[in-house]
């Protein structure tokens, strides 16, 4: 999923108070799962804004609205359009994609992000999410025992660990980052495929990654 976390409240509030009527839009997909911008988080943030407005004497009303996916046209229904029309501005609790998709749908409204979108990741334990994929556009994890060195090595090294690997940890942040190459080594050892790690991996073709410019996937077979 796309993992995001809420911006500091003051940063959100500073933007909210520029307007009288705010529509706070949640998203029911990834950011609901990572507890950053679903219906529940919309409710909490809306209450926080109202409370702060009352305490600080600002005139702000906040409407709450959560749709299934902010990155998909079909969920922007009439009720949503109506609520947007009534608001002065939008605060999206979707990921960066959701924020932009809202902006494209409602070109006449100012829209603010309430989240910082972080990465493609997984829930590793309740309340902890961790990066797994960098979206390089050309998946090679099978060569590395199912561990992606592009996303999970701090230097995206394809040919083995740098000198900064110690006790299975990455020197960039030993408390939070596992050395991807330690994980790769252990996995390949278990699979009896260590010899494959002796192969020199050639230069990566980054054109499939963001370096080829903003990307589009087109499927002619499913187009309407």
């Amino acid at each position, binding site marked *: 999923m796309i993992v995001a976390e809420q911006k500091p409240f003051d940063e959100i509030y500073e933007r909210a108070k520029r307007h009288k009527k705010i529509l706070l839009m949640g998203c029911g997909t990834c950011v609901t799962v990572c507890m950053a911008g679903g219906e529940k988080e919309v409710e909490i943030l809306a209450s926080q804004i109202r409370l702060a407005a009352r305490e600080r004497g600002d005139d702000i009303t906040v409407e709450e609205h959560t749709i299934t996916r902010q990155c998909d046209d079909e969920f922007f229904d009439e009720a949503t359009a109506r609520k947007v029309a009534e608001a002065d501005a939008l605060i999206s609790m979707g990921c960066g994609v959701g924020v932009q998709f809202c902006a494209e749908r409602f070109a006449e409204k100012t829209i603010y992000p309430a989240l910082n979108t972080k990465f493609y990741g997984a829930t590793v334990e309740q309340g902890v999410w961790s990066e797994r994929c960098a979206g390089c556009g050309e998946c090679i994890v099978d060569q590395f025992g199912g561990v992606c060195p592009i996303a999970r090595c*701090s*230097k*995206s*090294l*394809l*040919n*083995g*660990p*740098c*000198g*900064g*690997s*110690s*006790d*299975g940890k990455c*020197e*960039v*942040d*030993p408390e939070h980052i596992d*050395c991807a*190459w*330690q994980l790769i*080594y*252990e996995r390949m050892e278990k699979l009896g495929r260590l010899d494959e*790690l*002796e192969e*020199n*991996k*050639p*230069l*990566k073709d*980054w054109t499939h990654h963001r370096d080829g410019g903003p990307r589009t996937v087109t499927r002619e077979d499913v187009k309407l």
Partner: protein
Amino acid sequence: MSEDTLKSGSRLERTLVAGEFAVTGELGPPKSADVEIIERKAGYLKGVVDAVNITDNQTAIVRMSSIAAGLLAMKHGLEPVIQITCRDRNRLAIQADVLGAYALGLRNILCLSGDHQCFGNHPTSKNVFDMDSIQLIGMLKGMRDDKVFACGDEIRNTKKQPVVEPRVFIGAAANPFGDPFAFRVIRLAKKVNAGADFIQTQCIYDMDRFKQWMEQVHNKGLHEQVYILAGITPLKSVRMAEYMRDNVAGLTVPDHIIERLKNAEDPKEEGQKIAVEQIQEIRETPGVSGVHIMAIEAEKTVAGLVEKAGLLPRPQ
């Protein structure tokens, strides 16, 4: 070996090919445009070492570029080993710099991944890592031996003009102490396969582990394919030893060394003594072709160390 069978003709290459026990040093460029610092450091190292590594924004702190500082060092009689990291430049920039370095007369290049920028003075910067150090080695070998750029184009200005490739002696680093230990020698083999001509190791304090690693190197026959220079950093104090032990990932400083420094009247002197003993032990270790002395901001002390180790005068 005659001049035309040499890969680069650098003094370092000639020294190693001749079977001499090589000595390389290190010169950190200034954190300013101050030329005088380079001149002074070069003065300490001239005639003492066969070649000098010129670091490339080491520990991710901005310094004068390694090529510029290397050229200045060369003007003062040193043979530079230009360090290139993958952190700050992509394949276009690195190849351009390699052509430039060669055109300026620089003949040795050391390929490194590079310290992560979070450790330096610009932690908010973006890193590059378009390639890793092993791919960088392969790219330089391709430029030198196949006379092509990474994209496959020939290294010539136009079809009618001659191929002029950068003929450099290619170096790489090895850390015998990082984890996973078993992967360390595999990584060295990959560097050799990619085209490394010489290796400089991380500084060694744990001689047992270094010898263990050298044994693995022998088992793979790598010492016959690449020149290995063992890293030496003289310790100056107990604090330095403890700092190295606690803060440099993959570096171990055994207790007996720290004890010796603690009990010494003059820890700096003791550190030098330890380094001399280490050099002697390394000289007796089969498969090691030289030492790489990294005297961090202590270039002044290198001459004394090399002399006490019985490695002066250097072959010219």
